[in-house]
């Protein structure tokens, strides 16, 4: 939400909140809050899969996004595609062939950076369900304002006033970009700058994941 300088120092993000294992029916669930944007994720799997959808050597991942009001539209379908590609890159789905993994994301409140909130909630839910992963992933959104300044984790008003909006999914082992989804016009130099800023922001997010999971396991007897 805060503006950061163009050489990429002082990446500031909104306040995070996260809770795991809050729903009793799914195998894994989590809720992720970034500022005012709040998303609930639930994971079921590895479970039975329909013969028409089964893949012989990998698990079939299905992502469903539910908005707060209305039926899912083309926009939700394209967001589902982005989330699914990121998850398939980091889950070890070859350990569960001919099974299905279902991820359901429910929007509780949208105040900007929704796609990155989906990615963060999905990663926490997979960890809660105990699905084997090769690495963690996180989502970071950058908005380029009309004067060229880069804003990380923008709110809805900042997104509306920006000239470009870029979301990246970053992995935890090598800080590489797993998925990118962009809207608007920007130069190649600005793209590289946003990727670098997202990689720096992702370190903070992974640190937050670590602290959340440590707090969760601190109560084991």
């Amino acid at each position, binding site marked *: 939400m805060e503006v950061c300088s163009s050489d990429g120092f002082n990446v500031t993000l909104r306040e995070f909140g996260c809770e795991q294992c809050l729903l009793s029916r799914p*195998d894994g669930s989590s809720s992720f809050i970034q500022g005012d944007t709040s998303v609930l994720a639930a994971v079921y799997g590895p479970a039975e899969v329909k013969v028409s959808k089964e893949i012989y050597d990998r698990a079939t991942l299905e992502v469903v996004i539910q908005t707060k009001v209305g039926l899912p539209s083309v926009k939700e379908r394209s967001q589902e595609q982005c989330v699914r590609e990121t998850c398939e890159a980091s889950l070890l789905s070859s350990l*569960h*062939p001919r099974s299905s993994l279902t991820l359901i994301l429910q929007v509780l409140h949208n105040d900007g950076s929704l796609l990155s909130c989906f990615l963060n909630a999905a990663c926490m839910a997979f*960890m809660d*369900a*105990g699905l084997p*992963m090769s690495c963690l992933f996180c989502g970071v959104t950058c908005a380029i304002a009309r004067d060229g300044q880069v804003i990380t984790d923008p709110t809805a008003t900042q997104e509306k006033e920006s000239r470009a909006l870029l979301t990246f999914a970053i992995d*935890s082992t090598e800080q590489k970009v797993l998925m990118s989804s962009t809207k608007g016009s920007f130069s190649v130099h600005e793209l590289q700058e946003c990727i670098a800023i997202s990689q720096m922001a992702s370190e903070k997010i992974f640190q937050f994941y670590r602290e959340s999971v440590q707090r969760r*396991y601190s109560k084991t007897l």
Partner: protein
Amino acid sequence: MESCLKVKVGAVLLPGDVFTFIKTDTISLTESLKDEKIICGPGLRRNGDDVVVCKSGVLRHKNPNLYWVDSQQRRYVPVKGESVIGIVTTKSGDVFKVDVGGSEQASLSYLAFEGATKRNRPNVQVGDLVYAQFLIANKDMEPELVCIDSSGRANGLGVFGAGGLLFKGSLGLVRRLLTPQNEILKDLEKLYPCELVLGMNGRLWVRAASVQKTLIVANLLESSENMSAQQRRTLFKRVADGNL
């Protein structure tokens, strides 16, 4: 590498954490090179020369060289040799199909019961509970259950379940209840006499003297998962006093 694993025993690890073999650039001239052997349990995978963590949880260690990640999970994945509670769903041909809570149903042959022959078929109906062991359980094949051990005797396996209650807990709760000399079962023994069957797939079956006592024991077991030892003892004491 064993030293960097030993340091982290008891710490919380996340997927993607890597433990590498320390490259022997500095070979000591006085100590001989020892071969390190590490057994990776659930949650750890070998990736070339590295050991990579693939589930989030606490790193545990058992002498001499067994390491694994203890994670809290609800979904069961069949593993060879584990004893589980299954529900018979269909009888087809010479085989029963049993639901064990995994990604596909397991098969249980008619002949895998004590004293069963082609003429003397076991008395198993659809909907019965069976306590069975996995004979085959890997990611590529359909899981197979048996109700006899390698010498042909039942040894506690088989059909059961008249008059009790089946409920589901997490996998960690069942593992805790199965450790020898665990405190939850010791406290429970003092409370009511009851019969208990624990399946490694997270299913528990209880039978006590009356329906009410059965329900009480089931609720106590479910709630003891999230309590500390002190809270659990106060709860058990309250139940013991309240019902006398």
